[in-house]
């Protein structure tokens, strides 16, 4: 009993080491884990985009920075991939200061596979400060908020922006975010201007935003790396998201083992204390 009670005093660095190994091993060994059925929330986003007629406009809000890349970037690339496969126009915009760089990186990674051209198939409008004011401003005219794209080209000179004036011309707005941006997009973009919306968020935010999906305010939700992996599978291009999910699974198993050990240690130490109390 005393030996089991010692489980409570394990140095936390051992836990870090095991988690580190759990993440590393699948990458080094190619260990594969069963991928479950795509969740309805992910499938809904995929199906919605899949039924859009060619030429429709998909706006992607790149509201994340480098810190959110592991979860958000695979989602962004998978969505862009689907849009290019379906010949949809992609408009990137952001209210996050580091968002334009994320959009550039995602487009650069995918565009070559589909020979997509800047200005014709996609555009990066860049960052505008103001958050709520930007979202409301797009409702009265996207050119009022973004007179030019990120490179300084007037929107009227870009074929991809032809006929795109307000939210009415956007088939769906997908906000990929690590902060509170989706809340603002839902409240001001969806509620005020009725634009169809989906979001891709970090797993830590998921429980806060499922209520918007459940109440029909969102078409769907991509939840963290799992959502990204599901989407990669749906667009038939497994990439870093799918690869990362094996590590995720092993790490979760290790955490469960440590939680069990911690509980065993707790009950063992309680029993040990009681026994000592009884003897005294």
């Amino acid at each position, binding site marked *: 009993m005393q030996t089991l009670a010692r489980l409570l005093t394990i140095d936390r*660095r051992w836990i870090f080491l095991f988690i580190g190994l759990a993440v590393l091993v699948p990458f080094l060994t190619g260990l594969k884990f069963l991928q479950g*059925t795509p969740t309805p929330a992910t499938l809904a986003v995929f199906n919605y985009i899949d039924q859009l007629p060619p030429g429709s406009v998909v706006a992607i809000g790149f509201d994340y920075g480098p810190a959110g890349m592991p979860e958000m970037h695979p989602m962004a690339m998978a969505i862009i991939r689907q849009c290019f496969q379906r010949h949809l126009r992609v408009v990137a915009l952001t209210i996050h200061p580091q968002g334009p760089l994320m959009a550039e990186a995602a487009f650069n990674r995918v565009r070559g596979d589909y020979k997509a051209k800047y200005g014709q198939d996609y555009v990066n409008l860049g960052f505008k400060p103001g958050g709520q004011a930007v979202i409301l401003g797009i409702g009265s005219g996207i050119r009022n908020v973004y007179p030019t794209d990120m490179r300084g080209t007037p929107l009227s000179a870009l074929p991809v922006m032809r006929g795109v004036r307000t939210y009415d011309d956007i088939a769906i707005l997908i906000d990929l975010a690590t902060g509170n941006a989706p809340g603002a997009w839902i409240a001001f973009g969806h509620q005020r201007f009725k634009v169809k919306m989906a979001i891709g968020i970090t797993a830590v935010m998921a429980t806060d935003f499922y209520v918007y999906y459940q109440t029909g305010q969102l078409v769907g939700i991509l939840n963290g790396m799992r959502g990204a992996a599901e989407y990669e599978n749906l667009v038939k291009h*497994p990439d870093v998201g799918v690869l990362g999910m094996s590590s995720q699974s092993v790490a979760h198993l290790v955490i469960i083992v440590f939680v069990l050990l911690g509980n065993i240690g707790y009950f063992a130490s309680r029993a040990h204390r009681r026994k000592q109390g009884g003897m005294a």
Partner: protein
Amino acid sequence: MRTSRPPRDFRRSPRHSWLWHTPMPTSDTLTTLTSPQMIGLWLQAVLTFAILSFLIKDNAFYKFAEHIFVGVSAGYGVVLVWHEAVLPIMLYRIFPQLSAEQGALPDYWVIVPIVLGLMMISRFVPKLAWMSRWPMAFVVGYAAGSSIPSVVQANILQQIQGTIKPLVYYRPCVLVESPGAIDLSWVATSTVLNSLLLIVGVVCTLSYFYFSLEHKRMLGVTSRIGIWFLMAAFGAGFGNTVMARISLLIGRVQFLLYDWWQHGVIGLFR
């Protein structure tokens, strides 16, 4: 010899699928690295190790990386606001001749928000601090006026509407056998059970936060059930948090393996 199975078409059949063999992803842009790219790659790796060294013990390397992060973030923010707000929204509108745009006319209306902005800064001078109340009142008024209708709609009215679910489903009249009867199919029954669970969860959780009466008798029972629902919500939140944090580590491991090790280390010593 066993051949690999072709990927399943999810659009036709959204079922289980084994993880297909995926080739090691590589950053296409880093196959031939220039010297600045190589330096950048090593800098990223060194800073990653410096931050991760905190797991062993707080140390000087961690502090160094942390300070660099704070400094770079602040610097980036200042430069971005200068180029995205101060120049195009303030300076170029009053003095369009400074911008590259030809033939633009000055827009003197922007002087009003500029003055309001300067009044906000007056807080730093105690004698003039009263001036900051005007722009503050403007900001609060604008934010409240524009937010309240939309936020109430999204976060309260729609959420209430979401909890109002039917508890009985009737069979559609197009069915030949007993049209209009109560639908007892598995789908309808499970939907009703879900709705019941939702209603019980909402009512019991709300009752836990009702403090005008002592939590005894009926209110004691419902608030107790509410605690269980809250615990389930916290558990889901914790599980998602773990997944998010592990994802961050996975991101760093992917960088170290596929970018730094592959191009920065092997590429350098090849």
